[in-house]
């Protein structure tokens, strides 16, 4: 059963775009529920990337020959598409290798530029994954700024009261995820902006932006980072949006070719943003491919994608809630989106995932989801023998109710198998 927003014609298009959906694994139809780690890839994007590599490829920005012009135009067109998608200006869209590099760029650039000094406070939440935690933690050891946290409750949920309470620490920088990769909670970004009107606000959009648009101007976000591979795009490509006036004040993260203005044997001055943050030869075909990906998503209709993920999320939460041998984490209300973390009582997450894959063709994620501190919070609130990790099922717009029903069937089997 398909159900949801897609017409027959649209569904045919989706099926032909994602050929791996027709694959079997271990004799079963593939049910891919590991979208929060990385999504499947689209045929038209791969075809266009192959065409680009084979017939239009060269290095960009420097040479004057025809291939260089074509490649440069394709690369810059991708920037334009992403700029429109985010409601940002061209100079505000920097290409990175992904979310992790985006955060590392900001942390390093802030300390080099004096935007972050000894005694300053950086505010994170307790639900950040390691990419938005470890770079700040390590830099704070070298540069003397302080890290404070918006506290999560025992279900791993960030409540508005906790956000309000954190205003007392007067942060210079607030860096938070738009949606937790463990609890699935979408954070109230508007509320955060209002609570911290003067802080530099960084949003980690890695989980939210694949299924819900983020308008950087409407939300008055200073920086936004995300990855292409979690929204059908190639791996190794990410975006850093930054307000122009801030990017201009910032020291580059990586130094090298393309990002310079004038170089002597004594020193160098830098190109303008975004180029001063794109040292060396970038992942040209990946960026071009991400442009095609965005085009595909827009043709499918971003609002429909958002709606479909919402419908599937609800069905997933409701289906899992009915299994009394599961412990579910996260808010489970309307703020809970696209993924559910859970444990099967008495069964280790690795065993759950392994059996789901081998017996039912269901791909889920098991582990600490690169969020170890959050695991310790869930452990405290847990009523079972918590194994320091969880199973996570996550949907994208090409999943179906059938997929979730297969997961439920698999979980019942797992329960039975390990209680004998």
């Amino acid at each position: 059963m398909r159900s949801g927003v897609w017409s027959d014609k649209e569904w045919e298009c989706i099926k032909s775009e994602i050929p791996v959906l027709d694959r079997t694994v271990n004799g079963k139809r593939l049910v891919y529920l590991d979208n929060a780690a990385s999504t499947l890839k689209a045929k038209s994007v791969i075809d266009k990337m192959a065409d680009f590599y084979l017939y239009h490829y060269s290095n960009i920005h420097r040479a004057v020959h025809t291939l260089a012009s074509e490649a440069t135009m394709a690369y810059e067109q991708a920037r334009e598409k992403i700029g429109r998608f985010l409601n940002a200006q061209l100079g505000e869209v920097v290409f990175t290798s992904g979310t992790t590099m985006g955060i590392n760029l900001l942390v390093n650039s802030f300390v080099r530029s004096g935007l972050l000094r000894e005694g300053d406070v950086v505010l994170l939440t307790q639900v950040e994954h390691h990419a938005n935690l470890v770079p700040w933690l390590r830099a704070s050891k070298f540069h003397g700024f302080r890290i404070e946290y918006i506290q999560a409750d025992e279900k791993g949920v960030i409540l508005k009261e906790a956000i309000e309470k954190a205003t007392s620490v007067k942060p210079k920088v607030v860096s938070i995820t738009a949606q937790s990769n463990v609890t699935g909670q979408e954070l109230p970004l508007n509320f955060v902006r209002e609570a911290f009107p003067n802080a530099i606000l960084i949003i980690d959009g890695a989980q939210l932006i694949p299924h819900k648009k983020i308008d950087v101007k409407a939300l008055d976000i200073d920086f936004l980072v995300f990855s292409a591979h979690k929204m059908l795009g190639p791996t190794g490509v990410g975006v850093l949006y930054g307000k122009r006036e801030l990017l201009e004040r910032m020291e580059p993260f990586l130094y090298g070719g393309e990002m310079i203005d004038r170089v002597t044997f004594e020193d160098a001055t830098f190109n303008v943003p975004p180029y001063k943050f794109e040292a060396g030869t970038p992942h040209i075909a990946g960026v071009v491919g991400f442009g095609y990906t965005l085009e595909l998503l827009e043709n499918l209709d971003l609002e429909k994608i958002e709606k479909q993920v919402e419908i599937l999320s609800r069905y997933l939460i409701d289906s899992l809630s009915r299994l009394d041998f599961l412990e579910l984490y996260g808010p489970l209300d309307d703020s809970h989106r696209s993924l559910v973390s859970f444990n099967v009582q008495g069964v280790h997450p690795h065993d759950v995932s392994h059996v789901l894959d081998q017996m039912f063709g269901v791909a889920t994620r098991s582990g600490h989801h690169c969020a170890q501190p959050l695991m310790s919070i869930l452990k405290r609130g847990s009523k079972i023998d918590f194994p320091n990790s969880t199973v996570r099922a996550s949907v994208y717009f090409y999943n179906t109710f059938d997929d979730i029903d297969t997961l439920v069937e698999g979980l019942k089997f797992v329960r039975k198998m390990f209680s004998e």
Partner: protein
Amino acid sequence: MIYSEFIMDYSKLKKFVGKIENATKVEEGKNLSCGDEVTLYLLLDGNRIVDAKFEGHGCTISQASTNVMIEQIIGKTKEEALELLRNAENMILGKEFNEKLLGPILNFYDVKNYPMRVKCFLLPWKTLEMALK
């Protein structure tokens, strides 16, 4: 499937779970990918392992692997245990190994086909390696 009766049974064994108060060696091992932890207690008499126990949580594979390992190393000298370890490691990494030496450890042979589960199998063995260093 790697969940054979042997592995399921050994994963539930309680015989080797616990502390050895006067242990000669206490070593903590960790699987970074899932947060599983094991504490291995060894009681040595000279060069010989006379008793071993463990504490910790883990999946079926790591629990079964720990139980089988402990059962096999009790009574062996350090050198013999290390020789067993090398062969167990070779088996799980798809390299050449001595079948006769491994005995019941051979029940884990198929785990080598699942790269993410290789770490589960190796958790107790890696911990033993650190303990005997």
